[in-house]
């Protein structure tokens, strides 16, 4: 076993890189068209998607400073001509220390709260979306497309403005409260804006089309004969729904739930505009760490933790899903 040396490591890295480039060149020589088709997107995403993630990782090991840009460099030439590489683990230590005390924790609370908020919103979206999807799937083919378009149409308008619309509705003297009070249903305005409930409503509203579309795609394929058979065998419609329709539509339910849950976890605009001070979600925390506290390295460390705790599990889950059911792709 050779002793570890940086020189050897770099040598290996470069050798492999050149070997890889070399084989690429040979491939390009043989099939130019192919190389463009593969190489162009690979190059773009490598430069503007993968490289940023590596830089993110790098800067999560830096220290915040008052320089421009506001972080220290990992590599530096000291005044005594000593080349030094410094990994600062303080950012990760901060995150871990924060999590060890649940009472005062900020980042862990935000993380758990993000998952909770996304889960509740997904469930609500399912409750609102399923009847719509079921109704669309059962309607005559002539009506199906217009009804579906009506669900999708709001998605094409600005999500920021759609969130904004809810401020006017949920406010203390907003539309909802004014209506309820005029009807005499409540005496005092309900406090909904700036609470978690407003965040749930906002998320369900923003992502409802993502729930409905996969459900419709699934429910349309359901054979009505199955329900007829159930009815012939004496099954009541409600029981038939729970014992036949719902189990068969599970792939659609899972696909729709994933499409709502994933973006909801990292959501920033909705909790910021509709939520209260304790509707902390991880996207919001990262945002304020970056823009308000200008602590770029800590923000990077949060992002790396997010990558490990949310993005990687999701990708693995999707991979397993697509393996198990090759036909259920989004």
């Amino acid at each position, binding site marked *: 076993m050779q002793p570890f040396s940086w020189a050897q490591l770099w040598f290996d890295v470069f050798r492999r890189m050149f070997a890889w480039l070399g084989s690429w060149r040979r491939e390009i020589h043989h099939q130019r068209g192919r190389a463009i088709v593969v190489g162009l997107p690979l190059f773009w995403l490598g430069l503007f998607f993968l490289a940023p993630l590596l830089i993110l990782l790098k800067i999560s090991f830096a220290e915040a400073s008052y320089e421009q840009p506001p972080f220290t460099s990992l590599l530096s030439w000291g005044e005594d001509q000593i080349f030094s590489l410094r990994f600062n683990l303080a950012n990760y230590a901060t995150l871990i220390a924060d999590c060890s005390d649940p009472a005062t924790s900020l980042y862990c609370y935000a993380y758990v709260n993000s998952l909770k908020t996304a889960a509740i919103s997904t469930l609500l979206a399912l409750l609102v979306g399923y009847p*719509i999807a079921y109704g669309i799937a059962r309607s005559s083919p002539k009506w199906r497309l217009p009804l579906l378009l*009506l669900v999708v149409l709001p998605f094409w308008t600005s999500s920021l403005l759609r969130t904004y619309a809810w401020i006017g509705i949920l406010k203390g003297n907003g539309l909802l409260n004014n209506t309820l009070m005029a009807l005499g249903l409540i005496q005092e305005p309900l406090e909904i804006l700036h609470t978690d409930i407003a965040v749930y409503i906002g998320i369900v509203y923003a992502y409802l089309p993502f729930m409905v579309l996969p459900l419709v795609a699934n429910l349309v394929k359901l054979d009505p004969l199955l329900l007829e058979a159930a009815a012939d065998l004496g099954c009541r419609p409600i029981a038939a729904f729970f014992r036949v329709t719902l189990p068969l539509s599970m792939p659609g339910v899972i696909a729709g739930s994933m499409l709502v849950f994933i973006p909801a976890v990292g959501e920033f605009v909705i909790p910021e505009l509709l939520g209260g001070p304790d509707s902390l979600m991880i996207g919001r925390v990262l945002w304020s760490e970056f823009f308000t506290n200008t602590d770029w390295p800590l923000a990077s460390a949060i992002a790396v933790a997010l990558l490990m705790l949310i993005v990687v599990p999701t990708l693995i889950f999707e991979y397993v899903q697509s393996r198990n059911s090759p036909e259920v792709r989004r």
Partner: protein
Amino acid sequence: MRQRPFALYTAMAFGYAFLYLPILSLIVYSFNESRLVTVWAGFSTRWYGELFRNESLLDAAMNSFVVATTAATFSVTLGTLAGLALSRLGRFRGRTMLSIMTSAPLVMPEVMLGLSSLLLFVSMQQLIGWPDGRGITTITIAHVTLCTSYVTIIVQSRLAQLDESLEEAAMDLGARPWKVFFLVTLPVIAPALIAGWLLAFTLSLDDLVIASFVSGPDSTTLPIEVYSKVRLGLTPEVNALATLIIVFVTAVITLVGWIVHRSKPSRT
């Protein structure tokens, strides 16, 4: 079987009301005379006038339009290539890499994409002096990266439905691969490309988070401008803007839907 229970109708009506009442309220209150958005004080179009006199909002809208058009065009190009590579080229060097890199942005929180893109631009500026500061260019680049993933998914699923024998037949008849692409594949996947372009355009036009990270001090996009207004409370001007966007989007979607619908019988 064809009986439709009353409960289902009610639930559906509730769902559609939930979807459209907020939009309706935006539109109604854009014609409100009063500055107080929730108090009705009579019909007026004065906020539309104010909107068209608001220079910074108009500039931001122009920026957004330029960014969205460019980003959509670039991402459709890249996404088509990526979709083609993933569904037609079989196994090749870097396939796994490409497939991960096209699907990862879809599940990644926008704050992460924004932050990492910004760090790249800052590092690149330190290293090679480009991009010099941040602005329209950097926003466009970040949007292309995001939208390419969506376009790739759309193109890929369209190509998966498409019978490969059509392309094979053209190849057997002696057409070169590029000719096959332009004469056979492209016309068939054209609806998917239009859908992809529109989706990319919308995503770019709608994006607040990524743009906030990678924008410069004197280049704001429409969502950034709107967000800074909305944070301070309700303004009828924003309602007027929302109404215009809703009318525009509805018109475009209806038009595209109509064209696609009309061209359907003639398509095989």
